[in-house]
């Protein structure tokens, strides 16, 4: 039974991304490569961050401000990284378009660009879930479970899987939003993404308070749903305008 529980926790955290991977990503090899490289980028950022914070850890205090500094600095670092990722992607897009000219194939469609952004976001999200949730999940396969003091009603593994799911959603779709925002020069989208990230990170601070997880996790899910909704609306709008343009041209 414990193996089943462990697999269940892992699927809670990664199930949606797994289905995205199987249904969308795995059909196009280039997207798989994008997922892998984005995961690697995220891992490297995490290693760099932990290298910086290594000297101060483990934090012995129970006060919240060191954690707040940690989270805010990490988020700032990762948002800078997202800009870097965008720069790399921009050059890649040019190369791909040039290559498409070479082999007499059409340029990247709008949907292709969105798929690449989705793959990049999925890589970030999966890396997040893998390192923050799955890697602490190892004991869940054994014959016991674990509770933390602040949230003593629910097993720790379930909590971390739930939080990880929210973060996977946020990471995956905020990358799509961010790339579109950068491409269009849309200021709202450009600022929407870091703000969502910061809000989500700060919301997890509520978990430090006793019983805080009953408040923090629903709020986190509201943020995740908001991101999802915003992304869906934006993609819908872009696709409509794209269709209208192509109809006008033809």
């Amino acid at each position, binding site marked *: 039974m414990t193996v089943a529980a462990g697999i269940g926790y892992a699927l809670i955290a990664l199930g949606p991304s797994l289905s995205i991977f199987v249904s969308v990503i795995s059909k196009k090899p280039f997207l798989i490569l994008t997922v892998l490289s984005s995961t690697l980028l995220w891992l490297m950022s995490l*290693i760099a961050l932990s290298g910086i914070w290594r000297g101060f850890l483990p934090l012995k205090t129970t006060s919240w401000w060191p954690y707040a500094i*940690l989270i805010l600095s990490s988020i700032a670092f990762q948002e800078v990284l997202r800009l870097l990722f965008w720069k790399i992607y921009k050059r890649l897009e040019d190369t*791909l378009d040039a290559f498409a000219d070479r082999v007499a194939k059409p340029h990247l469609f709008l949907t292709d660009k969105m798929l690449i952004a989705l793959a990049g976001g999925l890589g970030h999200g999966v890396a997040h879930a893998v390192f923050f949730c799955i890697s602490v999940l190892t004991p869940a396969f054994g014959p016991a479970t674990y509770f933390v003091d602040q949230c003593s009603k629910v097993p720790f593994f379930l909590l971390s899987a739930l939080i990880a799911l929210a973060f996977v959603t946020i990471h995956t779709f905020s990358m799509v939003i961010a790339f579109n925002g950068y491409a269009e020069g849309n200021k709202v989208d450009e600022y929407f993404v870091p703000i969502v990230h910061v809000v989500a990170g700060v919301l997890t601070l509520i978990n430090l308070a006793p019983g805080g997880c009953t408040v923090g996790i629903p709020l986190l899910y509201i943020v995740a749903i908001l991101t999802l909704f915003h992304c869906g609306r934006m993609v819908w709008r872009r696709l409509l305008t794209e269709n209208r343009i192509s109809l006008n041209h033809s």
Partner: protein
Amino acid sequence: MESSILESIGVEIIGVMSPVSICMFLVVLLVYSLSSSSSPSSAVSDIRTAANLVYAENPSDTAAQKLEGALLNALVFVILIAIVTFLLLLLYYYNCTSFLKHYTRFSAFFVLGSMGGSIFLSLIQRFSIPVDSVTCFILLFNFTVVGVLSVFGTGIPIIVRQSYMVCLGISVAAWLTKLPEWTTWVLLVALAVYDLVAVLAPGGPLKMLVELASSRNEELPALIYEARPTTVARAGSRGGTSLGLLVTGVTAGEPSSAPSSSSSSAIELQAVSRDNKDRNVNDNLNENRDYGGNEYSVVAMGGFGGERSQGGRNDEEERSPLVGNGGGEGGIVDEERHEGNESRGGDVEIAERGIKLGLGDFVFYSVLVGRAAMYDLMTVYACYLAIISGLGCTLILLSVCRQALPALPISITLGVLFYFLTRLLMEPFIVGTATNLMMF
């Protein structure tokens, strides 16, 4: 709706990465399921191979002793491997090809039979599968015989051959993960260095072996995973060359486009391509008249240097449907070009038909990941990502250099680096934040 280029790029890379991933994943599963059963001390102690001839690691030894012993072990192992490789080279030089083939078959038999058998046994014990010894023996024997036949057999589907290669890799890797910890790490690094020397240095045994094989237009009689595309051959080879082209496009654009925008790379790419199209009209004509001319055209193109010849070849690929090469004929062209071109790889090679990866690379990647699995899941993911990205870098380099490249050095270096970074730096960080339910 026309298919976009996203579907055609990177087919080859995925074709190599997926078996490597499968191999690593299965080794990790094996290590997990087997190590959790027996007590940790007994699982480690009782093997004696060439890799720990000199020094058997004792948990109570000091770090210096362990390091010294591990270095000695690695040295002995690498020297043994070098001797064996030179022996094989000698045998190959004196045309004992059939002996080598039989030897390879025998070793496949031995590996599948003994190491695979011991893995089966421990799995049966672990999950208490009710099976009697006769059935088990017959099953094992069948499995082994099919494996041996598939190594050099002709009429066997490529997928069977590929899966047996993965099985061989898993058996050896699972066996080698039983080595003591320090020895494993030092051994991996030593092998990466050896690989680098043996493939790239002038007079390196693998390099000589590869050159010898390419001068004789033969397949190397060795255990090599061939990522020949299982579905449509043409689509796969297109993907490989397209990757090469893409990469050269990037690198060609690099020096000029660093200050300015990257539009210049596009221009350069265009220029190259037009240049090559002109040249290749002739080549293509040659080719279509008779296939004897093909050899000539390949040789002529070989002189253009790496990126040119890639662009040219891709053009041919593009053009061949236009000038009416049928599917079967195209296959022959590919075959011939493969032989004429033969950027033969002891470790990896990109040919028109696919990339080849030595089985040793499978084994040592999996050993690294399996060893990482004994520490924690986190290190497994980090090492997996590092190895895969190293493999990707190697493949990209391969499509630029178009010569045999060692696949171990980049991946192993990255893997070892990420293992220790993860273990020393990241784990306290992650555990500290995640157990407080904080994420970002």
